[in-house]
Structures are given as C-alpha cells and as structure tokens.
C-alpha cells in the first residue's frame, strides 16, 4: 500500500514537471534565426553548388563530424567481428 502511494505521488510529480515544461515550450515553426543559419541558406548553393543544404552542412561545412561518425561505425564493425569470430574455443 505504501509503495503504491509512493508510485502515484511520483507519477504526479513527473507528470506535473512535463506539463509545466510543455506549457513553456518554444512555439512550433517560430524559428530563432542565427547569422550562421542565414549564411548557410544563402551561400550553400553558390559556394558549394549543391541543392541540398543539409547535405552540404553534413558533408562539407561540418565534414569533420561525419569523419568521426564513419570512424565510429568502422570501430563498431571491428569490435563485432572481434567478438563473434570463430576462435579455438568453438565447443
């Protein structure tokens, strides 16, 4: 009984916090414009001759991040191959 009361109180607290956050959420579609966003949108087509601005950011302006992503994938594949290789302990 005591645990159930505690559970209900916890649920109410969490729901109150989430509803309070939801009431103060940033309105959808109301963008906060930064100078960097405007620079990408205006100059991506002229500088990099690419239509997809998202791809131009991911693979060009922020290409170093994507190199890290590719390296993470490579490391994950290497570790899976090391984990599941057929060793001498095979039954």
């Amino acid at each position: 009984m005591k645990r159930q009361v505690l559970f209900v109180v916890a649920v109410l607290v969490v729901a109150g916090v989430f509803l309070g956050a939801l009431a103060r959420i940033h309105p959808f579609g109301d963008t906060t414009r930064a100078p960097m966003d405007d620079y990408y949108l205006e100059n991506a087509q002229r500088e990099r001759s690419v239509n997809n601005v998202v791809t131009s950011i991911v693979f060009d302006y922020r290409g170093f991040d994507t190199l890290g992503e590719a390296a993470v994938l490579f490391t994950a594949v290497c570790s899976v191959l090391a984990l599941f290789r057929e060793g001498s302990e095979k039954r």
Partner: protein
Amino acid sequence: MNPLSVVVRTICDIFAWFLGIFGAYVIIHGHISPGGGFQGGAVVATMAALLLVAYGGKKVLSFVRPGIYTGMEATGLLVFITAGFLGIGTTFFYNFLAGQGGLFGSVVPLGPNSGILNSAGTISLMNMAVGLEVVSGLSLILIYMFKGIRLFEGREGRSERGHDR
C-alpha cells in the same frame, strides 16, 4: 535458422530487388533529395537481413564472402579520408571539386531548381564512399552475428525449426 516458407521467399524475391535499387537511388541522389550515404546504406543493408531470414543462414553464407565486404568497408573509409585530405590546400574537407567543371563539377543555378546529378563536388563522392562503408559494415555485422548464433545452437538439445526444410 532454417529457410522460411515459400510465401516468405517469394515476397523476399520481389522486395530484395526493390531495396537494392531504392538504396542505391538514395545514396546517389544524396546531394539532391533527402537522404545520403548513411540512410541509403542502411536501406541496402536491410537486403542482407531479409535474405538471411527468408533463405536461412546455410544458403546465404555459402555464397557470401565476408572478405569482399571487409575490403569494401576499408575502401569506403579510405576514399572518404582521402577526399577530405585532397582539399588540404585551403582547409581540411574543402570542397575542391565543386563548380570546377568535370567530375561532379557542374554549377547549379541559384534558387529553386530540379537539381543536377553531376554537381556538388566531393559531397557526391563522400556520399558514395560512406554508402559503400555503411552497406558493407552493417552486412558484416549481420553475417557475423548470425554465425555467432550458430555457435550456441543445439547446446541445450533444442534447435529452431522452419518450414519445408
């Protein structure tokens, strides 16, 4: 894991081709439409999962050679890093092919347009390199995990059974 029924295999025959073509489309058109190397590579790698489930491991592993996938993955990452280093005259990851004419060098018109496939410079090249890496990497993970399952199969005296073996 044994092959599934003839219904599943027939549907797999149809959808495996669709997955391969759609994934290649997403990779190649990464600089025009939404998507790119990572997304299209994941779509193509789904084909390996579909074949493994529908046809069973014994048949798929008999004609898949993991060495080719390993080479493809290393090639993809090396092409990506090389394309980044080739622009080091200006900065690291500088797009030295864009707008120069030649390979991936067409100039796109400003404003909304329908897109040119031979544009975007190293972005296209990097999309294809990353796509190659993701396809081979995820397929290798699937194949090796499947092999790892077979190591533990039948240890407790029970084995999974499929239809019409």
